[in-house]
């Protein structure tokens, strides 16, 4: 399989010489054709900078990248013809209607809505009842759908989605990922970024990005398999003192809030009994200790701790 996107040692600085901030520090990876590739990372990890470099809006300070076989600097014009980009911020014309926006973007890509209607049909049907409404008056989820339609209308071979689900409700998020899965079947390569760890499982492969560095690249299952330590979910009615005790315990490598539980990473295997003994003073406070399978977020926390 030939790669749709290659990224080779990309470095990007911001700010003047005296006050340089490194947004991306030497990133390299490839995205295969037809792959749904996720870039997962907290705010400020460098996701948007990477997207802007790949969509020819920003120049990297070092390194090179290709999209669909074209160099992002030399052949930016070619890339602009075949890439679809949906920025994190809604950036369609708010004073044009849904239909007008779509028609406008179809025209400037030298195509028509009819020609590629099959691509956007499933998504467009959902916003069609509002096609005479101005884009600025749509709800957040609707805006995302319209933006996706506009990014797809010229049948791009690579689709860049920068935090498409940020600020969208849980139901719409789920729907959105369903739509991406369908698009994948059309053999469109999709690069998507998100700060939500739970969305990582929807991707074919993910890259975990933290302060401009890639911590890990693998399939979601692969990343979880890398997590070799024992993990427990612990709760009691006195959560805060419990966390403090866990953090100072010599057998515990890391402990952090996780919803209604604390997740506890042990330093060594098979030490459940030691943990139980250590926490015995909480026995009267409804102590619960369960061994659990790690998820992406646990892996991310562990990787972050390692790089520190």
């Amino acid at each position, binding site marked *: 399989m030939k790669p749709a996107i290659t990224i080779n040692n990309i470095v990007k600085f911001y700010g003047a010489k005296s006050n340089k901030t490194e947004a991306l520090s030497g990133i390299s990876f490839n995205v295969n054709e037809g792959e749904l590739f996720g870039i997962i990372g907290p705010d400020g990890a460098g996701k948007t900078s990477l997207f802007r470099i790949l*969509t*020819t*809006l*920003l*120049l990297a300070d070092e390194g090179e990248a290709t999209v669909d076989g074209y160099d992002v600097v030399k052949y*930016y*014009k070619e890339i*602009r*013809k075949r*890439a679809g*980009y949906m*920025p994190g*911020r*809604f*950036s*369609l*014309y*708010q*004073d*044009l209607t849904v239909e*007008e926006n779509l028609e*406008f*973007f179809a*025209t*400037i*890509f*030298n195509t028509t809505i009819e020609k590629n209607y099959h691509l956007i049909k499933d998504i467009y049907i959902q916003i069609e009842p509002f096609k005479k409404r101005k884009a600025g008056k749509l709800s957040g989820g609707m805006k995302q759908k319209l933006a996706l339609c*506009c990014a797809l209308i010229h049948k791009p071979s690579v689709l860049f989605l920068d935090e498409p689900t940020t600020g969208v409700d849980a139901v719409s998020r789920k729907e959105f990922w369903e739509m991406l899965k369908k698009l994948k079947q059309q053999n469109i390569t999709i690069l998507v970024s998100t700060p939500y760890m739970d969305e990582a499982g929807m991707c074919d492969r993910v890259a975990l990005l933290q302060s401009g560095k890639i911590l890990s690249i693998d399939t979601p299952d692969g990343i979880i398999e890398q997590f070799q330590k024992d993990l427990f979910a612990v709760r009691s009615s006195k959560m805060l003192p419990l966390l403090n005790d866990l953090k100072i315990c010599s057998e515990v490598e890391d402990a952090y809030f996780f919803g209604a539980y604390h997740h506890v990473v042990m330093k060594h295997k098979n030490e459940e009994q030691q943990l139980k003994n250590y926490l015995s003073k909480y026995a009267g406070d409804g102590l619960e200790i369960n061994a659990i399978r790690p998820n992406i977020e646990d892996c991310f926390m562990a990787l972050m701790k390692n790089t520190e």
Partner: protein
Amino acid sequence: MRSLRFLLQKEFRQIFRNTSILRIIFLMPIIQLLVLPWAADYEMKNINITVIDHDHSPYSRQLISKITASGYFILQDYTSSYNQSLVDIEKDKSDLILEIPASFQKNLIKENESKLFVAVNAINGVKANLGGAYLISIIRNFNGNIRSKWIQFPRFNPELNINVVSSDWYNPEMNYKYFMVPGILVILVTLVGSFLASLNIVKEKEIGTIEQINVTPIKKYQFVLGKLIPFWVLGLIVLGIGLGISRLFYGIISAGNLFVIFGFAAVYLLAVLGLGLLISTYTSTQQQAMLISFFLIMIFVLLGGLYTSIDSMPHWAQMMTKVNPVTYFIEVMRMVVLKGSGFADIKNQFLIMLGFAMVLNGWAVLSYRKRY
């Protein structure tokens, strides 16, 4: 071409959908043209004068009635003490003090000479200047009248008199509206042409839509033309409306051919649109663009010869007016409307404006880097 057509369609749609902008474009020139020419009046009227009369003679009364009858002066106070009259000046009730000495009539008859004292409140320079000049000319006139009354004409005129008769060409009644209205119209066209265009482009930056446009195959020149053409058209429409208003409300009928005006305006608009484009490339928010525009329009107006004559400016300021496109359009407007100049007469201004258009647009296109 198809892309450009669609860009234009989109721009016009957005302009016509934005009712507040539309109202500004069309109502602003109408209201400003109806109001401003009346306010920008050079003739000084309603000058308040305080007269201190120590003489109370028939002559002093005659002089006072002549002053008040002139129509320029309002007799604010009639007192007999200078100190009291100064209070009027201090309270800003009075602009001028005329003091008539006690022996005004006596001296005038006996010694064939008399003195008057005029004090001027110089807080408002224009009013003080003109008021003082008016008053002195009235007094001179009064002087001439009384002399002709008591002096029998000798066979030979003892004094040599040069009588000056002037005639005002191109504006026989010296109606200031005839030259103010075309000038104000120029400012309005400038506003629409450059500042609305720059705000429009900056808005795309601010909202982020330019990001989306930049990842499309649209070319630099297409995007720029798509922005400039609508405002070029709107500028010409505003000019048309303005000329209509000046004809309807001020009876100003252009002495020259309207095609000359529109022809020059077409090139002028290119120049100011280039300026608007330039502003938009150096700013990233509408607020910044607004402030720069505001700064520039002040300079344009005050260094454009609209309110004050360029010839009376210091040399360095005159140099500055040479790089102000507004200067040339105001000049051309006045020449064509009042004098009836044709293309041949405004050839120089036309070429200069063409130069402005090329420099400003070239600079703007260079600094508008769509790619990065």
